[in-house]
Structures are given as structure tokens and as C-alpha cells.
């Protein structure tokens, strides 16, 4: 397993209203390994307080797949914040 103090870098992508609330299209998040989607979500709430509760209505995708909170993240993973979709 990973040694203490090691960190991973995750690219975060914001879309639609989440993008407006975060005030940016994307960011790099440094997380202490091992990290899950849930850990990333908690870090996002701290870094972007305006996103706050809005994250509750969003789904999260890792490397373009909808993912559960316990999914592990790796260095270089792409994490997308997906507000309720409204295509069509």
C-alpha cells in the first residue's frame, strides 16, 4: 500500500451550474493517498464553499463513468461534477 504523506493529483471538471458556482471550468485537487471519490467530494466542499449543498444534487463521474463514493481515485484520475442532466 501507499506510504504516509503520499499525495495524488486529480483533475476536476465542473459543468453547467456547478461551473458557475465553482467559478471555474476545472481544477487540480491534491489528495492524500489512498483517496476515494467521497474524499474528493469533501475536499471540494472546503475549497469551493459556494458549491456546498449543491453537490448533493450532483452525480460524480470518474474517467467518464458515473461512480459511487467509495470508488478509489488514482493519480491522474479525471473527476467530473455532473449536475442533473437536461439534454434532449
Amino acid at each position, binding site marked *: 500500500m501507499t506510504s504516509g504523506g503520499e499525495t495524488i493529483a486529480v483533475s476536476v*471538471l465542473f*459543468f*453547467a*451550474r456547478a461551473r*458557475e458556482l465553482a467559478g471555474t471550468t476545472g481544477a487540480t485537487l491534491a489528495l492524500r493517498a489512498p483517496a476515494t471519490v467521497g474524499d474528493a467530494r469533501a475536499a471540494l466542499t472546503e475549497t469551493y464553499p459556494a458549491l456546498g449543498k449543491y453537490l448533493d*444534487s450532483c452525480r460524480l*463521474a470518474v474517467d*467518464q463513468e*458515473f461512480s459511487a463514493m467509495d470508488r478509489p481515485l488514482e493519480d491522474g484520475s479525471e473527476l*467530473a461534477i*455532473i*449536475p*442533473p*442532466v*437536461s*439534454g*434532449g
Partner: protein
Amino acid sequence: MRRVVSSPIDEQAAVRRVAHTGAGAVVTFAGTVRDHNRGRTVVAIEYHAYEEMASREIEQIEAEAVQRWPGIEILILHRIGRLELGEVCVFLVVAAAHRKEGFEALRFAIDTLKQRVPIWKKEIYSDGVAWIEGS
């Protein structure tokens, strides 16, 4: 063929791509930009997408439809960017041996697209804008 496009959808080309002589039914659906929603007057809609994932989800929905209704051919196209009233935002075509599975597969595909393909509309009104969430 790209499933998420930023130029007008070529409906005839889409139909030609799936139609085949084993199909006795070619069913299409076009979603268009409507001039009203939830009591407000809409002047245009901006469609935004997480393009790579949207394409991937659309292709997955096509594969699921083929698995459920073997023998059909299906193509789903979604346009993004700013669309004016009446323009086609989404176009689906299913070619099936018989109309029953054609209609069923088409209904499944558009309903599933609306649940999980990462595309969002921002409605433009005469006096403001709003993100639409859920459908």
C-alpha cells in the same frame, strides 16, 4: 460518426446510415427548441455537454437498445451550442424489422438519454437565462 455535434444535424444522412433492406420500419424522433417552458417565453437554448462522456453514454445506450431488441439498427445524435427556435437539438433513428420494436427501442433510447447523458440546457429568455436541471 460523432454523436455530439456542434453543427446542424443531417437527419437524412442519419436515416441512410441505419436503414437497411431487412428493416420494415424506420422510426425517427426529432426534439426541437420550443418557444415556452414553465410559463416563460424562450428565445433560444444553449446546450452544453461533457462531450467525451456524452458520446460514450450515447453509444452505450445504442448498444443497450440493440441488446434488448436484437436486429435493430440505431443512431442517436445530439447537437450542442446555441440553437434557435424550431431547430433540432436531438435526433434518433431506429431501423427495425417491425414497427413495434422500432417504437419501443426509440422510446427507451430517448428516455434513457434524458436520464443519464451529461448534456445540459441553458434557456435564454427575453429577460434572463436559467439552467434547466432534470427532465
